[in-house]
């Protein structure tokens, strides 16, 4: 007997090791839904690797920052100019979008829709990967100590990235949306068709469960539907790149992720979602003309002595600036371009204040010789959903100065 054991010792040890691992696999497959707990071996492996990854990432990013922030500054001035121009353009666009958003909120409030909004995020840095072609996961430098839990959404400004799969004390595993075990509730932006975005073994992202009798065009945007209870509705997932006939009457739709999943450095973890009914905001508008006015040279503010004068009541909180007259034209024809601003359809939220003179116009649009600027207070439509509308003046002057003399008294 001993001779047999000695002769086949290697094979016996091999069989034992394989049996143990096969049994271990079987146990894990049976408990495949248990993602809350981490096995000790995973904790050891992660604790062994991630400290070095953090150090290397710190050295790597530190060196890069030193080079890019202090030495290699070529083209920064030109880029700064371009960015400023871009900010101006976006501010004008924001005015129009605020109007659309306000209108959508009013409609949602009428229909008593409940909606989820991101109320808190935590930035994290990507420090490593799973190192396997079959498993597309990332490691981030935030963990349980930072309040992370499993199934939290991980996003970037470009689009969604994945979800927190496992948390350790100071690091976490993130399952990317191109992993074959991931799934995200999705909706096509134009056709409003709903499906599930999944990863494939080859690392591609596909949109499933769209019937072949539907029409989907390449280039259409795919967004989160909110149906998975992980990602709030409306976040960008990607763009449809290819549509083909698939199996079982479903289309085979390839999606290019909006976030560059292979070049992630920083991500945001959505740590808090708020579900609420949108409130019907009593918002006013800020006009494109006001935005433009801020960019033009202006007459200095009035001396503080004016503040001692008795203030006249502002007409209402919903009061908006009177239409800005264009210099050289009658004030009544100074409505802003239609493309920039959509007038608020709720006529009760606007108290028109017809300007009688140039004093009622925004100071920046007035001739330099005019005395005393008395713009009316302006309410800016706040994009924050379901919150009390903030009264934010379009310019600092508007709060320090009395309302127009020609307004309702």
């Amino acid at each position, binding site marked *: 007997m001993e001779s047999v054991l000695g002769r086949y010792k290697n094979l016996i040890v*091999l069989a034992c090791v394989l049996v143990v691992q096969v049994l*271990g*696999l079987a146990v894990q497959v049976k408990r495949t839904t248990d993602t809350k707990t981490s096995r000790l071996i995973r904790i050891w492996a992660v604790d062994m690797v991630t400290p070095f990854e953090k150090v290397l990432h710190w050295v790597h990013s530190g060196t890069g920052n030193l080079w890019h922030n202090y030495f290699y500054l070529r083209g920064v001035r030109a880029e700064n100019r371009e960015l400023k121009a871009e900010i101006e353009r976006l501010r004008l666009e924001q005015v129009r979008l605020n109007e659309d958003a306000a209108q959508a909120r009013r409609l949602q409030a009428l229909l008593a829709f409940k909606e989820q909004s991101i109320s808190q995020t935590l930035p994290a840095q990507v420090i490593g990967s799973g190192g396997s072609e079959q498993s597309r996961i990332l490691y981030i430098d935030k963990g349980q100590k930072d309040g992370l839990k499993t199934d939290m959404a991980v996003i970037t400004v470009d689009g969604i990235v994945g979800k927190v799969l496992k948390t350790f004390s100071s690091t976490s595993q993130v399952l990317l949306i191109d992993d074959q075990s991931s799934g995200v509730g999705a909706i096509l932006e134009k056709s409003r068709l709903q499906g599930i975005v999944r990863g494939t073994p080859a690392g591609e992202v596909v949109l499933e469960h769209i019937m072949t009798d539907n029409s989907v065009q390449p280039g259409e945007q795919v967004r989160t539907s909110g149906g998975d209870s992980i990602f709030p509705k409306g976040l960008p997932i990607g763009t449809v790149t290819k549509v083909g006939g698939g199996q079982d009457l479903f289309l085979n739709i390839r999606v290019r992720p909006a976030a560059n999943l292979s070049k992630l450095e920083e991500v945001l973890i959505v740590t808090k979602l708020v579900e609420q009914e949108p409130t019907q905001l009593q918002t006013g508008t800020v006009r494109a003309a006001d935005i433009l006015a801020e960019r033009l040279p202006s007459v200095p503010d009035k001396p503080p002595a004016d503040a001692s004068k008795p203030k006249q009541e502002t007409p209402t909180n919903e009061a908006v600036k009177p239409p800005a007259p264009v210099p050289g034209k009658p004030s009544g024809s100074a409505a802003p371009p239609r493309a920039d601003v959509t007038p608020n359809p709720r006529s009760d939220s606007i108290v028109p204040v017809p300007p009688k003179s140039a004093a009622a116009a925004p100071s920046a649009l007035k001739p330099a010789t005019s005395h005393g600027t008395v713009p009316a207070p302006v309410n800016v439509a706040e994009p924050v959903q379901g919150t009390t509308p903030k009264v934010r003046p379009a310019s600092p002057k508007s709060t320090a100065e009395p309302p127009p003399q020609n307004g309702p008294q």
Partner: protein
Amino acid sequence: MPITYTSGDQVEVYRFNWLITLGVPATALFLQAWLPHQFPAFAMLDLPLLVTIFFAISRRNPISGLLTGGAIGVFQDALTGLPIGLNGIAKTLVGYAASSLGVKIDVENAGARLLVTLVFCVTHKVVYFMVARGMVNLTMNWSWPHELWSALINAVVGVFMFYALDRFKQRT
């Protein structure tokens, strides 16, 4: 003079410092997790597999080879989001086979190392694929050109890596 006999008594058996025994696999696991994040093309490499093969053919002890392969594979699995044991089983078998082969033939020259590593890379992929499909029901696409290309790249990298690691060998 390189030994090319098939006799187990005449091939040289090496051992390693405990620091190397632990440090080299740990470094391979770390690089496997870190490099693909910086350079996605590195995901094609399997450094822990190369280390498994190196230790197996150097020690020429099947039990040592399979245990080393199993341990490295299990730790590699622990870093992925997949069940633990996929790489463990595949690397256990490769470690056993490589050390058994190391007992029979000499694998000290570059040509033999390239061939042996190429064969074991493909073997590893086949075993991994079978376990993943058969036991875990993991969907995997098998593409011979991709797997052969990947195995060839691993084999070429392995030849250079083995020469670097030869410095740490100690004769028994």
